[in-house]
């Protein structure tokens, strides 16, 4: 059993959306998807049919994305201070480390998360983060990569990696609270 060229091409829009979430860069995402689709077309006889075509293509794309991320990471300055500085979170806590403001339950029913809109808001929020922090967060949460693999691919320590993920989550929490949950709660 092999995947047909039509089946492979039909997944392009989904793959492009997946790639854009990793790279925050339309041109780089299109290049990675194009490379993945070419590799898939050349190797389509190897598609065993044990997983869906989408799952198979996603696994090919992940390798292309990791290559691109590694290359981008080398181009970003090696100074990690912007990514690991947590001082901008100090305002969330008082001198004893307690929350300054009550943390409220978002309380949006799961099915209320309108996927397409949520994705757009997530993308906007991710763009406000330092580039490398957004990269690490996407590798962890969108690509489901393990911490050890992220550290190895980006040559950063596990400690720096966990600080960056914490920073990303705190930043996204604030951004989503303003742009998504308050608006959805009000509607």
């Amino acid at each position, binding site marked *: 059993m092999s995947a047909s060229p039509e089946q492979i091409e039909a997944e392009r829009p989904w793959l492009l959306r997946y790639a854009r979430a990793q790279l925050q860069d339309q041109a780089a995402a299109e290049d990675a998807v194009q490379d993945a689709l070419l590799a898939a077309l050349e190797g389509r006889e190897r598609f065993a049919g044990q997983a869906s075509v989408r799952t198979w293509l996603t696994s090919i794309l992940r390798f292309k994305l990791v290559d691109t991320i590694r290359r981008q990471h080398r181009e970003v300055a090696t100074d990690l201070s912007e990514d690991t500085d947590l001082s901008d979170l100090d305002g969330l806590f008082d001198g004893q480390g307690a929350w300054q403001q009550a943390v409220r339950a978002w309380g949006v029913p799961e099915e209320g998360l309108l996927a397409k809109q949520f994705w757009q808001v997530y993308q906007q929020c991710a763009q406000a983060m330092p580039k490398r922090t957004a990269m690490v967060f996407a590798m962890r949460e969108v690509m489901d990569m393990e911490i050890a693999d992220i550290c190895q691919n980006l040559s950063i320590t596990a400690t720096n990696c966990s600080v960056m993920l914490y920073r990303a*989550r705190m930043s996204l*929490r604030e951004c989503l609270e303003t742009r998504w949950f308050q608006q959805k709660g009000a509607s």
Partner: protein
Amino acid sequence: RMSCKQASRLISDGMDRPLGRSEQVRLSFHLLLCRNCRHFRQQMQQLRSGIRRARDE
């Protein structure tokens, strides 16, 4: 006693690695007493599930 600031960091770390026994015990005790941090943990879970659902749509 663990502060909310420390608890929020451990909640995040716990999403990426198994917490150590003493970390787990201290965090569980803090969460028993702190509604803000329970809400924070729910928010982090919603953040993860929201992203994955949106990704897979």
